[in-house]
Every structure is written in C-alpha cells, then in structure tokens.
C-alpha cells in the first residue's frame, strides 16, 4: 500500500523509540515503523476485523475506543503518540489531543485540510459540501465528525500553548509550502506541550 504520509511520519520518528498509534487500523504504519525504525509499538483500534490484521502482523493492539481515554497511561510513557486521520473522527478531539500530549513526549497528527483549494472551490462555486481525495466521503456516510483547516489547527495550538515542532504537507511539492492552508490536501504536524 502506498501511503505517502507514512513516509513523512517515518521520517519524523527516531529509531528504537516507543510509539502509541491511536486508531491504528490494520496496523500498516506500526508494522512499517517496527521494521524500518525498530520501534516498540502499541496500537489502539475499535474495529474488530482490523484487530485480526494487526495480530497477524505480530503487533500489540488494544481493541478499544479512543474517546475512552488514555487514563491508564502515566505521563510521557511513549516517545510518540500518532493520530493519523483519527483526530477528526473522535467525539471529543480536544480531550483526546490533550491526553495524547500528556502520555506522549511528542504527538504526530495527520488530518485532511478543509481549506484545500478544491474543497473551497466546491463549496464556493458549486454550493456543495466538498468531496476530495483526502475528504472522499459524502456528508451522509463520512466517519469525520469534525472539519478543520490547517489554519484552524494552528490557531488551536496557539491558544492551547502547544508547540508545533515540524510540519509537512501533501501533496509533497515545494509550492505547497508557500501557501499550505490553500494548497495542502492534508497536513502532518508534530506537536508537543510547552
């Protein structure tokens, strides 16, 4: 499976670190990180079928709901907490992000940018909720409970005293870096508290 954001996340992670992947799906990212970076990984996933795929890959995974919280983990118990394409799907993203920042030294979030120019175009000129490669669902069948732009997330970090350590955008093109809130389909940010 060719997931360009996996390469970006892989590049952000230091070898032999500990990683908690919230909403790890079938575990492809964790499996790649275990193999390429020698990380010690733990996944959390709500879908039972996906759990079987994770176990087949030899991953440690909890069948659980992210909104249930990470209360059982002590502060900074992981080097990285990953929330790739999951933040917009949880009921209470603020709570989950805060908890992720508590248990992880660093948090990597990946999300679709609602202010991507194609999305803006569809909303502005067609008067329709946008359907783009990074937001591929219709309004009635989307797993996304929250829609946010890159600028929204930057504002959130500023208000919450969260530091953005690294930013990467897709598509991976130098022009996207000039106006990411307009040109990026999705964003991957590494953040930390303080």
């Amino acid at each position, binding site marked *: 499976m060719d997931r360009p954001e996996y390469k970006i996340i892989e590049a952000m992670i230091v070898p032999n670190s500990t990683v908690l992947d919230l909403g790890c799906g079938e575990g492809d990212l964790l499996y790649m990180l275990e193999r390429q970076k020698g990380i010690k990984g733990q996944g959390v996933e709500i879908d039972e079928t996906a759990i*079987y795929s994770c176990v*087949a890959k*030899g991953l440690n995974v*909890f*069948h659980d709901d992210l909104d249930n919280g990470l209360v059982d983990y002590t502060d900074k118990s992981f080097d990285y907490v990953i929330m790739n394409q999951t933040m917009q799907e949880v009921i209470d993203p603020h709570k989950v992000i805060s908890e992720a920042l508590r248990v992880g030294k660093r948090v990597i979030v990946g999300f679709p940018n609602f202010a991507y120019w194609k999305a803006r175009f569809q909303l502005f000129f067609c008067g329709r909720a946008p359907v783009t490669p990074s937001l591929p669902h219709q309004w009635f069948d989307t797993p996304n409970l929250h829609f946010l732009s890159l600028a929204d997330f930057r504002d959130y970090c500023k208000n919450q005293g969260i530091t953005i350590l690294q930013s990467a955008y897709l598509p991976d093109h130098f022009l996207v870096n000039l106006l990411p809130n307009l040109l990026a389909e999705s964003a991957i940010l590494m953040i930390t508290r303080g």
Partner: protein
Amino acid sequence: MLRQEGKSPGSGVGIVKTKYFTFAEGNERFNLTLGGKLGPITVAYETYGELNEDKSNAILIVHALSGDAHAAGYHEGDKKPGWWDAMIGPGRAFDTNKFFVICSNVLGGCRGTTGPISLNPETQEPYGLNFPLITIRDMVRVQRHLLDHLGIKRLLSVAGGSMGGMQVLQWMVSYPTRLLSAIPIATTLRHTAQQIAFNEVGRQAIMADPYWKSGFYYGGYIPAKGLAVARMIGHITYMSEKSMEEKFGRQRKGNVSPFKFTADFEVENYLHYKGDKFVERFDANSYLYITKAMDLFDLTAGGKPIEEIFKKVEAKVLVIAFKSDWLYPIHQSKEIVRACKKAGLQTTFCEIYSEYGHDAFLLEVEEESHLISHFLNKVARENDIELSDLG
C-alpha cells in the same frame, strides 16, 4: 468474520493417554495457601506434540471448572475428543507441529488429580470434607511441580478460559520469570458478588441433597440431583439470552402434556440432559471445592493497587473476551488489560463478537485460533525459540 488462512486444520492429535505424576510423598507434604497440608499428590496430565531439545517450546493449557487433563485427541474407544480439541493439534491454534502442549487436571479435581474423592492415606477412605480448602494459587503451584518433573524451566505460554484464565493470571503473578507469554480468556482478576452468588446457589443445591451426607457419601448413593441442579445453573450462566432463544425458543418436547412439571420445554430438557451427563463424570465435592477456590480468587486482595498486580511480570499478554459473555463480562477483561498497561506489558486485547455468551471461549474457534496462532508465532520469533516443526 475471518477468511480461512488456506491452511487446513489437519486431523488432530489422534489417540492419547492420560499420564500420572506423584509428588509430596512420604514425609514430604505440600503446604496449602490456606494452611492445610496434603500429600501425596497425584497429577493427571496429557501432552501433545514434541518437546524440543532445550525444552523451550512448551505451552501449558489450564482448564475451566468442569474440564480435565484430556484437552485434545481421543482416548482409546471414545467417540468424543478432548474438551479443546478444536484448538490443539497439527495446524491448529496450539500447533502441535511446533509446540509441546501440556494439560493437567487441577488440584481438587476428580479426573485423576488428587481431590476429595481420592483416598486419604491416613484413613484409607476418600477424603470427603476432610480434604483441605484449596485456592487457584495451589492449583498453579501443583502445575509448577509437574513442570519441574518434566524439566521445563520456562513456558512459551500458558493459556486458558474462565477458571483457566484465573490460573493464567495466577501464573503471571506467582512465576513471572517462568513464562514468556500468557493468554487469559473470558476471565477476571477477582470474582464479583454476582459470580460468587451463582456458585453459592450451585453449592447449596449439592449440600441440600440428602445423599450429600456432609460430604461423606462415597461408596453409597451420590448427591446426583444436587450436582445436576448445580450444573443446570452453570449452563444458564454460560449461554446468552439470545443463544438460548435461538437454540430453544419456546419449543416443546414431543407431546408431553404440560403443567405436570415434567420437562416439557426444550430448554428444560436440555438442562436436565446436561445435568445428568455431568453427574456421570463429576464429583459433587470437587464441585464444592473448586467453585470455592474460584470465589476466593482475588488478585487485588488487600486493596492492592492495580499497577502493582503484574509488577514483576515480563510476559507478553493476549487478553480475549466475548461480547455476549455476561458471566465474565468485557469490563472484567478490560480491568486485566488496565493492569497489564500499568505494568508496561506488551499486551493485545480483542473483544470477539459472539452471541454464545461465556461458552464462546469453547466455540469461537476460528477467531480465537487466528489470534492465538499469530500471537504464539510472534512470541516464538521474538525469543528465537526453535520449534519442533514436524509439519
């Protein structure tokens, strides 16, 4: 829900025989957790597969309340295989082409291991209620003696459901350095009031049977009715409302006329049948002692904080629970997972969708096999275990 993995399940382990091992003989006595002493102790056990040269591929299977050492294969002349045959054998979850699988009857049992039905060497009569109270910890300590006898220093895994799961958790606590992994299924860190309550009703049914005679009934009539009723209560708790409804509904049996308190509903008939079958193979006093051991089980005893429970454990853990299991509900398995998390253990938890209730741990073979076989392979790989590989 799962795709078949292309590997055929094979034809099982074939004909097997129960073996026996005796310890705590002569002046040597086995000290029990609650203060009693026992000796000699005989352990009935079976093994499947081959132990490798460095004795590192052994897996201990621990059974539930009514189980025994005969987990897989067939005894000569039997029509029914062991109680977890679908899970143990060549190409199965506990793959006997790779692993050496051991299962023993628990202390206090009535299927070959020393229990209340065994002869008390001091009186040359069956122990009856002179048998001392036992605990899950005692059962596990007896299993450790068996492993010492077999020369196995470290288990690749220990696995079991229900009361078997309690033994798995006790293994983690009692012998943290003697196991590489653990698979507790549909179980709990401690019995709750509801679980104790169901067991107590079962015990009271036995003790209310006039043939029970304060436990000294051997050689005469046995408290068959009481034991059958205890088993009937058990069976109700092992199924879900839905699985019972699907299996029996309000179906009636033949043309028996109702209201004469005969077993006219199919569900009644089923419970009677299960109760009567159980009496043929189980001892009422063993039922009392073993259910009491389950009720006494509490790894959080004395207000032990959850992060302390598995403090010394290094084993990798696979916790499995079933959605419709109301006897050992999901939240109890999640508590085990919490304890593992707090101890920093490498843990996997899966809640299998099933409508079979607590019985699911014996029935959801495909899902369990997938999880367990991949998990065991990973444990073997991580620890460079040389597998028998007779396949």
